[in-house]
């Protein structure tokens, strides 16, 4: 299968998550209403959107790890004469691992999106928990912390004069996750988090 056809699958998952985060989310979320009651609420839609974004970010990161391995075997996985070329970046020994732990960037992405997924699922499973605002802030902080890392990777692309579409998709997923956590933060601050109920049980 063409690598861009596979990339579009990751892209569709992320795009679907993005749409759930937008005002159109309420009409799109109707397809989940019968199975997931929570998606009838704004909070539920945002969380569902975030689940898709994190899952798409995870799958595209896993795909870049696979590419990293395939390139080490000597195979070409995404090369071309155009500026869009993953092989030149994922296969470049100077740039294809993180400078601290020397781990492939794809693996770093998988770990990051797994952690974000855990935060989103925890918030989704117990939205009334007193820990929820903390989890939202941690998610927001983690995705903001991802921005300088994305900046570093984009600087590699500029240096090499190449763009890795798979890496860029993962970067976009991180930025969308940041927006998602920000929307969750705003909603959590408002009365719309749990309309008609007291938000948290306050302990002594």
């Amino acid at each position: 299968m063409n690598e861009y056809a596979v990339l579009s699958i990751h892209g569709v998952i992320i795009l679907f998550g993005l749409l759930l985060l937008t005002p159109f989310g309420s009409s799109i979320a109707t397809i989940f209403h019968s199975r997931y009651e929570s998606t009838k609420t704004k909070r539920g839609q945002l969380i569902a959107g975030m689940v898709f974004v994190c899952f798409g970010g995870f799958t595209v990161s896993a795909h870049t790890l696979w590419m990293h391995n395939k390139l080490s075997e000597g195979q070409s996985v995404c090369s071309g004469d155009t500026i869009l070329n993953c092989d030149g970046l994922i296969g470049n020994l100077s740039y294809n691992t993180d400078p601290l732990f020397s781990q492939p960037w794809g693996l770093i992405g998988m770990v990051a999106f797994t952690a974000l997924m855990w935060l989103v699922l925890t918030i989704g499973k117990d939205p009334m928990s007193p820990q929820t605002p903390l989890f939202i802030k941690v998610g927001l902080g983690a995705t903001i912390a991802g921005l300088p890392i994305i900046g570093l990777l984009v600087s590699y692309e500029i240096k090499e004069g190449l763009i890795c579409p798979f890496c860029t998709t993962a970067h976009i997923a991180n930025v969308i996750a940041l927006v998602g956590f920000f929307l969750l933060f705003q909603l959590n601050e408002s009365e719309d988090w749990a309309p008609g109920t007291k938000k948290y049980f306050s302990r002594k």
Partner: protein
Amino acid sequence: MSLHQTIGLIDVNGFGKIGENMNSMLHNEEASARSEAGIVAMSMFFAGLLVVAFTSSPIASGTQAGERAPIFSGEAYDGTSWKSFEFDDLLDVSWTWNSTNDAPWIAVEFLDTDCGYCKNSAEEVGVWAQTYSADQWIGPDVIFIAIAVEFVADSSRAEIVEFRTQYSNDFRFVDDLDISIAKEWDVTATPSYFLVQPDGIVAWNSAVDKLGWDAKEDDTFAITSEDRRVELNEAIEVITLRNGGGQ
């Protein structure tokens, strides 16, 4: 009234032990949410890792026998002019130990035009480059590439061209005066030699001279059991003829 509010009322109104127990249940509920989310997230992570692990078999990059030689590019002098050079253009990733194609092996030499040992061995290397071409011996074709570094004293492209001509080294000399390739190949002394399989796997490194890579067995083997140095020509003969691609 939600469970949280109910427990909250019990706790706030001081029903002592019952409140504490209920509070503990609330903690358990939160812990349960975190655990469930953790199980789902970790399942996703390990499922992803398993798919990657079962569909690829990564080879470490490096310059030890069995590792994938670092790819490099630069400008090389071929006897007429300096032209752009891509190491991976020489590779044939479909090569295997029993391939019947005529993909060439690659002998890589790191040298410094001011290094005495390099000068001493240059003539011999020039002869080997001619000896191990496909039409001169029974083994596979071996392409020689020299990487000219600057470790000892100031060097220049003019010196590289002069060195190549003086010692009749009729193969390409890559300009690595900024020693960027030498760093990637972990070369700190000259001359250093490597023999690379047609698929880009390092078969021999002169720094670990007695060990060669056996592509069929996917393991290293001793080129000699004697207490002496193994030279590049011996490594070429022993390793390429051991599983030289159906030659």
